[in-house]
C-alpha cells in the first residue's frame, strides 16, 4: 500500500497552481490528503501529477459577509468547525461537521478537499445541497460560480473541469429564527454515514412551516434534496404527524443498493427515521417571527 509514481509540484500562488492545472492532462490536488492519500496507497488513483496546495496561503481563509460564509478551499475542516463567527451565523455547520471522521482527520482535511472529493456519504456536500450553497471554481481562463445543486454529479464526480480548481465554498447563513438540525448514523464512530439527514425549518406568523429544507447523504450517488418531503411540509403544522409523514416521503430518495454497510430496505427505514428526528429537533430550535 504505497503510492504510485507521480510528478509533484507545490506552487506558491494560486496563479501558479492554475497554470500547472491547465498544463497537466491528468492532475489531482493534494489538499489535506485525507482522501487522496488512501486512494493513492490503495493505488486506486494513478495520477500523472499531484499538485500540492499547501503553500497557497490565499486559499485558507474564512470570511463571513453578505449573508454568506465564504471559506477558502484550503481551510482545514477543524478551523471552520471552530470558527465562532461562522458558528454565530450558521450553527448547523458545526453540528454537521462534528460527524466528519475524527478530529485528527479534520485537523488535516480541508473544506475544498471534502467537497471536491464528493463522496456521496459526506456531510459537507450534503450541507451545501441543503443550504443551497455555492462553489467557486477557477481556471487560468477565469472563474465561475456553481450552485451546489449542480455541483455534485455522481460518486466522486463533480462539475469541476480538469483544468479547474475549487477555490471557495460558500455556505449561506441561516435566517433569523430558522430551526436547524443534522443527524447521521454510522456503524462505527466517525465513519462515513450509512445515511444522514439535515433540515432547516422556517415558521410563519401562524407557527406553520413557511419553508422546510431537507437533504440527505449516503443514500444515492450524490447528496440529495428531499423535495417531496419539503413540499409536503410547506404550510403544515410542525409536529409528529407532519414529520413522520415527511420521513415516509423521504424513503424514495434512497437509490443506493444493498452494500456491506446496509441493505437498501434498512437505509430507507433509517432515512425516514433520521428525517423525522432532524425535523423534530429543527422545530424545537425554530422561533416564529415576533
Amino acid at each position: 500500500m504505497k503510492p504510485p509514481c507521480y510528478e509533484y509540484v507545490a506552487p506558491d500562488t494560486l496563479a501558479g497552481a492554475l497554470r500547472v492545472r491547465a498544463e497537466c492532462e491528468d492532475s489531482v490536488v493534494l489538499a489535506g490528503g485525507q482522501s487522496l492519500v488512501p486512494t493513492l496507497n490503495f493505488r486506486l488513483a494513478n495520477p500523472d501529477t499531484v499538485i500540492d496546495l499547501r503553500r497557497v496561503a490565499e486559499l485558507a481563509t474564512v470570511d463571513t459577509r453578505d449573508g454568506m460564509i465564504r471559506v477558502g478551499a484550503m481551510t482545514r475542516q477543524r478551523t471552520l468547525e471552530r470558527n465562532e463567527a461562522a458558528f454565530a451565523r450558521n450553527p448547523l455547520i458545526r453540528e454537521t461537521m462534528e460527524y466528519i471522521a475524527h478530529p485528527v482527520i479534520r485537523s488535516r482535511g480541508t473544506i475544498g478537499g471534502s467537497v471536491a472529493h464528493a463522496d456521496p456519504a459526506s456531510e459537507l456536500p450534503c450541507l451545501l445541497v441543503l443550504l443551497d450553497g455555492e462553489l467557486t471554481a477557477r481556471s487560468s481562463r477565469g472563474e465561475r460560480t456553481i450552485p451546489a445543486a449542480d455541483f455534485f454529479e455522481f460518486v466522486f464526480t463533480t462539475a469541476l473541469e480538469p483544468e479547474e480548481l475549487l477555490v471557495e465554498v460558500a455556505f449561506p447563513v441561516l435566517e433569523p429564527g430558522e430551526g436547524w438540525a443534522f443527524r447521521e448514523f454510522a456503524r462505527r464512530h466517525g465513519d462515513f454515514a450509512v445515511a444522514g439527514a439535515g433540515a432547516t425549518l422556517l415558521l410563519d406568523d401562524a407557527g406553520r412551516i413557511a419553508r422546510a429544507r431537507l437533504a440527505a447523504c449516503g443514500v444515492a450517488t450524490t447528496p440529495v434534496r428531499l423535495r417531496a418531503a419539503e413540499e409536503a411540509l410547506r404550510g403544515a403544522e410542525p409536529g409528529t404527524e407532519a414529520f413522520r409523514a415527511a420521513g415516509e416521503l423521504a424513503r424514495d430518495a434512497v437509490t443506493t443498493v444493498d452494500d456491506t454497510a446496509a441493505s437498501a430496505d434498512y437505509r430507507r427505514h433509517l432515512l425516514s427515521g433520521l428525517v423525522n428526528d432532524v425535523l423534530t429537533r429543527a422545530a424545537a430550535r425554530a422561533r416564529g417571527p415576533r
Partner: protein
Amino acid sequence: MSTRQFGARVQRNEDARLITGRGRFVDDLPLDGVLHGAFARSAVARGRITHLDTTAARALPGVHRVYTHADLGELDVTMPLLIPHPCIGHPRTQYPLAHEDVYHVGQAIAFVVADDRYIAEDAARLIEIDYDILPVEVDPAKAALDGAPLVHEDVPNNIAAHLVQVSGDPDAAFAAADHVTRIQVRVDRSTAAPMECLSTAARWDAVSGELTVWDGTQAPIGLRGALSSLFDLDEDKVRVVAPDVGGGFGPKIVFPYSNEILVPFAAKDLRRPVKWVEDRSENFVHMTHERTQIHDIELAATSDGVVLGLRDTFLHDTGSFIPYGIAVAQVASTQIAGPYRIPAIHVTFDCVYTPTVPVTPYRGCGRPQANFAIERAMDQLAAELGIDRFEIRRRNFIAPDEFPYTRPDLVFADGLPVTLDSGRYDDALAALEKALDLDAIRAEQEQARAEGRLLGLGLSFYVEGTGLGPYEGAKIRLHPITGKAYVNTGLTAQGQGHETAWAQIVADQIGVRPEDVIVVEGDTGVFDWGVATFASRAAVVSGNAVHVAAVSARARIAQAAANMLEADPDDIELENGRAFVRGTSSRGVTLAEVATMSNPLRYAFNKAAQTATQFAPTARSTGKPLPDGERPGIEVSEYYSPPHATWAYGVHAALVEVDPVTCDIDVKRYVCVHDCGNMINPMIVEGQVAGGVAQGMGGAFYEKLEYDENGVLRNASFMDFLVPYATEVPHIEMIHMETPSPLNPLGIKGVGEAGTIPVGQVIASAVEDALSPLGAPPVRQVPLSPSAIHDLLREARVSA
C-alpha cells in the same frame, strides 16, 4: 516474608520499551542492506492462469528478482498438512506460489524483491497475469450440494473431511424425550485483524551457512522445523526469532505462509537480507480467516427442561485449503454440550472447501460457533418449555461433585476424550445474577417496554478446554554478576505479558523482584523445545513449566548457598536477591555470589569472577571443583506436560437497548463472571478478558467478511470491515472466580480466548429478548447488524 508475586497486579516488564517507541517488531529491525518484497496475488477466486509474464517487472530499475513457482526448485511443493487426521479424506494444501490454478483471491502468484517496497509494488503491478475464470460457489451450504462448482476438481461435493462422533446413547435419549427442540444457526466469516499484519525478514549467512528468520509468528519452533526440512538445512543452522509481535489471535501460526518460504529463499538466493511486511489490504486476502459454520442442532429434553441428548450436524467452511486440519471443527464439536451434563451426544461435521482464504483457528477456534449453537438452543428450549433462561441452565449444569466429568468418545484437539476437570457453574451463574441484580433489571425492562423502548437481557455460559499439551519447557539461569534471573521458554508472546507472568512465578521461588527476572522468548537460538502459543495454553503449560523450573532453580541455589554458608539446604531462605540461613538474615550471600561461586573458574575476567578462581580465599580446597553429578552455574531446564485439557468457564450477560430508528444496539451493561483457576496476574487476566470481549463484540455485531458471488471480498479494508473503536466496545464489569485446576501445580486454567467465546450469543439473546414483545422472530445468525435487526423488526411488523 516478601509478598507473594503470584496473584499480584504486577506492572508489566515489557511495557518499558513499548511505551517509549523502542519495541522491536519485525519491520523495526535495522537490517543493513535489506531488500523489500511484494507479492503479485490472484485477482480471481478460481481460475487457471493462461499467461504469466514478469518481463516488465524484472526490467524495472531497482528490482532484483521476480520469482514464480518455476524458480523455487525443491521448495515448489505443497505445504504441510500441519495436523493430519484420519477423517480428512481429501487433504489439500497450498503451494508457496500458485501453479496454473488459483484457488482464492489473494493467493500468491509471484514474489518481487526490490530496493524498497514502493518499487516492489510498482513491479508487482507490472506482472501480467491472464486467467481462465472458473465458476465458483462461496456459500459452504451450496458448495456441498451436488453439481456445485468444485474448488478442487477431484474432491466430490467439496467435502474435505467428514467426522461422526457419538458419546453415550443419543438414539435412546431422543426416544425417551418429552420434548425435542431443533434450530439452525449460523456464524459468519471473520478475521483476526491483529494490528500488526504478518511480517518476515531473513538473512542468510554464507560464511556459517546459517539462516536467520525474524517472523511475526506464534510458533517459531514449528516454523524452524518446517524451514529446516523444506530448505534441507540442519535444525541448528536455522534460527527463527519472533521479536515483538503485534497481536496474534491464532492465524499467525499457520506455517509456512508463502512469505515464510519466499523471504528466506530470496535472502539465500540474493545473499542480501530481505523483508516483507504484509499491508492491510493483503492481510484481508492472505492471512487465514475463521468462523463460518452452519449448525443444525437438536436437544432432547424432559418436560422440566433436563436435556437428555444432543444432536448436532454442522458444516464448517475451511476455505480453499485445509493446512491446519480439522482443528476448528473438532474443537467446535467437542465443546458443543457446553457446561451441561447432556449424557448423550451425536455430532457430525463436514469441512467444506470454498474458493476463499483458507480457514484456521482464530481466537475461540470453533468455540464461539459451538457456544452460539448450544446456547441459542438452550434459549429456544427454555422458551418452548416456558422455563426461565437462567433456570434451565441451572437444571443442566454438571455439579461440582461430578468432576472430573468425561464425555466418552468425544475426542478433543489433544487426542484425548473430553474430560472437564473442575468448575462451580452454579456459583458462577448465581454470581452473575447477583451482579446484574436481576429483579431490578426486570423492573427496568418492564418500565422500558411500557415506554416503547426495546431493552433486552442476554446471557451465555461457556466452557473452554484450555492448556493443551503436549508440553512446554523453561530454562532458568542466574547471571553471575547481576544475580538477575534469565528465563527462556519455547513460546512467544503477542501481548499476553509473558515477560511479567513468568517473572512473577520465578520471583516467588528465588526471592527476587519480578523486574529482576528477564524473560526472553520466541528465539530458537535461545531455547528450542516446545510447541507454540495458541489455544489458551501458555499460562497453563508454560506457566507450570516455568514453575517447575523455578522450584528446581531454588533447590540448586539453596544447595549452593548451603555449601557456601556451611548450613543445611533446608535452612536456606531466599529473599531480596539474597540467600541466608533462616533466622539469621545477616548470614547470607547474594544470588550473584551464589551464581558465581557455583561455577568454578580459572580466570578472573572481572571482579566478581575473582571469587570463583582457584586461589581465592573462598575457594574449595578439597575435592573436585565440580563434584560428580553437579553442573556448573545455576542453570536448570524443566518441562511440564499436562495430563489433558483443563476447563475454564464463565458466564456473560448484557443489557442491550435496540434503537428502533437506527436499529443500532447500545450495550448498557456488560457483566462477565469467569473462572480461569488461579490467576498469576489479575491485571493481565482482565486485559485478556476485556480484549476478548472486544473481539467478541466485533464478531457479534460489526465484523463480517463478505464475499460476492464471484469470490471477491467486498470489504477488504478497515473502512469497511468494522473493527470496533472504544465507542463500540462496552465497559465490562468483571467478576473473578478462582477454582484451582486440580491438574497442574499452579492450579491454572487458560484465559486467552475466554472473552471472545460467548459474546455472539450474549448479544443475540439480548437482541432477541429486546424484540420479543413485538413478536420478532428469533435470532439465528451472527454477526448481527442494523440491517439484520431491521429485518427482524420488519418481520415482527408483518406478523403482527
